[in-house]
């Protein structure tokens, strides 16, 4: 099987994030493989081990992404492609998807796996838009997949409920938490990853013009959530407390 994983380098949202004049400060931030993409990589490796074939990682980003790509190779992927997007103005989900579509036009993918969302932008758009653009099936937010005779049996998470789907390949799926437990890249894996092929492409290689993939969205403002303030503890008779709570929820928090 020709198995592809689309993956992104993101900052670690579990670390402290700083914003300066509407931009996220990259100095000192920790960068990781988007955690949902890690599930995709793990699943791709398991599918390959079961069905044979090759796992190719594809990432749109700058050269800094090499470390995350090599980590995916160390986990067990076979090769990787980095498509550099430094020339793209105001890149957004459209840009990424358009670049990926240009790349995948010339590939014969049986299955493309991606993350359900990227933890930085959190849009969850790139996967489904890419599938639409390529004219192939897609299923988002999957928690289980089995492939047999060109068909996939999939369990997907629908806001806590399950949906069971049977669908034919070629196919794009996006991984939800619970799909698997991503492996640690082993030491021998890390050492081998150095020697695995990593191809770097730019827009020219894909016959794309910068303005063709220029972002379509406009970021108006970016800010951190307000600091959590100390909670309020109500006192007095229970009945009074309930009345006060209802009035606070109505008038102060304005949630009811």
């Amino acid at each position, binding site marked *: 099987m020709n198995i592809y994983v689309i993956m992104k380098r993101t900052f670690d949202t579990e670390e402290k994030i700083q914003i300066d004049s509407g931009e996220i400060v990259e100095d000192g931030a920790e960068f990781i493989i988007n955690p949902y993409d890690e599930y995709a990589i793990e699943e791709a490796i398991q599918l390959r081990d079961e069905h044979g074939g090759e796992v190719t990682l594809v990432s749109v980003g700058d050269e800094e992404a*090499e*470390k995350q790509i*090599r*980590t995916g190779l*160390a986990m067990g992927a076979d090769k990787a492609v980095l498509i550099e997007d430094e020339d793209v103005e105001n890149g957004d989900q459209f840009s990424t998807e358009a670049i990926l579509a240009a790349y995948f036009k010339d590939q014969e993918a049986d299955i493309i796996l991606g993350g359900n969302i990227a933890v930085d932008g959190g849009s969850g758009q790139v996967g489904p838009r890419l599938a639409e653009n390529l004219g192939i099936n897609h299923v988002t937010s999957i928690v289980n997949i089995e492939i047999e005779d060109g068909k996939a049996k999939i369990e997907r998470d629908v806001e806590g409920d399950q949906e069971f789907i049977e669908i034919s390949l070629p196919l794009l799926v996006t991984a939800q938490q619970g799909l698997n437990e991503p492996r*640690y*890249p*082993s*030491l*021998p*894996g*890390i*050492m081998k*990853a*150095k020697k695995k092929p990593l191809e770097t492409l730019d827009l020219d290689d894909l016959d794309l013009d910068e303005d063709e993939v220029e972002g379509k969205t406009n970021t108006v403002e970016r800010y951190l959530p307000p600091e959590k303030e100390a909670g309020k503890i109500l006192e007095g008779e229970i009945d009074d407390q309930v009345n006060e709570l209802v009035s606070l929820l109505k008038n102060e928090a304005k949630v009811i």
Partner: protein
Amino acid sequence: MDFSFSKEQLMIRDMVRDFAQKEIAPIAEEIDRTERFPIENFKKMGELGLLGIPFPEEYGGSGGDTLSYILAVEEIGKACGSTGLSYAAAVSLGASPLYAFGTEEQKKEHLVPLAKGESLGAFGLTEPNAGSDAGGTRTKAELKGDKYVINGEKCWITNASFARTVIVTAVTGKDDRGKNKISAFIVPTDSPGLTIRSEYEKMGVRGSNTTELVLEDVEVPEEDILGDPSKGFNQFLYTLDGGRISIAALALGIGKAAYEAALQYSNERKQFGKLIGSFQAIQFKLADMAMELELASNMVYKAAWLKDQKKPFKKEAAMAKLFASESATRACNQALQIHGGYGYMREYHIERYLRDAKLMEIGEGTSEIQRLVIAREIGCPR
């Protein structure tokens, strides 16, 4: 000058950090309290190739460098001092001398299982009456026919209960100047006459396996002497030089864990209506901790880098071990102070960090011995 790590070094550090925080940190308190050796984590570490980082693939290793290994020790130490000590002892004291001085057969037979993590390495030098003064070793090995017969006692030997073989130092005779000739032997732990007990009650690193060895007429074939019989003493001095970098890295990991906890606590705890981190007295403690740990990092990484470059590193290893271990103890002590009464409670881990860090000033050469090594290296008169 280039202070950056390679991509592989960073990937190894990140992987070990991830592993250590998910698998090792959650049980650190439990193994300390119950004095349990976490063998299950060593199995997993073996499978990930962590026990063979600095050894080539042909000997079951991962083909990494000293610096990668040092980063791994630091990350594991940050999660758990006990696990860190057994890890550092397994690689630096147990496996490294086999790699550095073993014959091809010895490497195949004894290094491979250690590098793969199928067994843990152990190194028995210290005796009840020979600690800092290793030249005063009393354990004797006498050549009888084609076998050495070893008699003696070793104390505080890390990992021996979980080892297939332990490297034991013993006196084989006297040199021309009348000084003890000391050699190292590869002794299978199931040898008749060898008793291994682990009954010590320790202040810290309580989850690490610490043992007493009693050797009564233990027979070892002549070929199981490790390396050059006449250079045994220098061999283990070289082994200790390498080991010191790993103890320094372990100290660094523990110190950083304490410092990070203290910094976070200072940003949460309020007294007199203010965060305690806004008091200058607390800020100065944190600034000193940050500075000392940063300086210690630089020295530890430099010593490892020198070893990787095959340059002399004896003095730098001693400096790294001395400064990192003393900085770590200071950092843990101040972190405890910053936590106040909470720091004195088990639940907050700081008291464990302090108990664990203290060992780093003693094991693999006390702080006093490091100063002696440095003094000798800078040319002080003997």
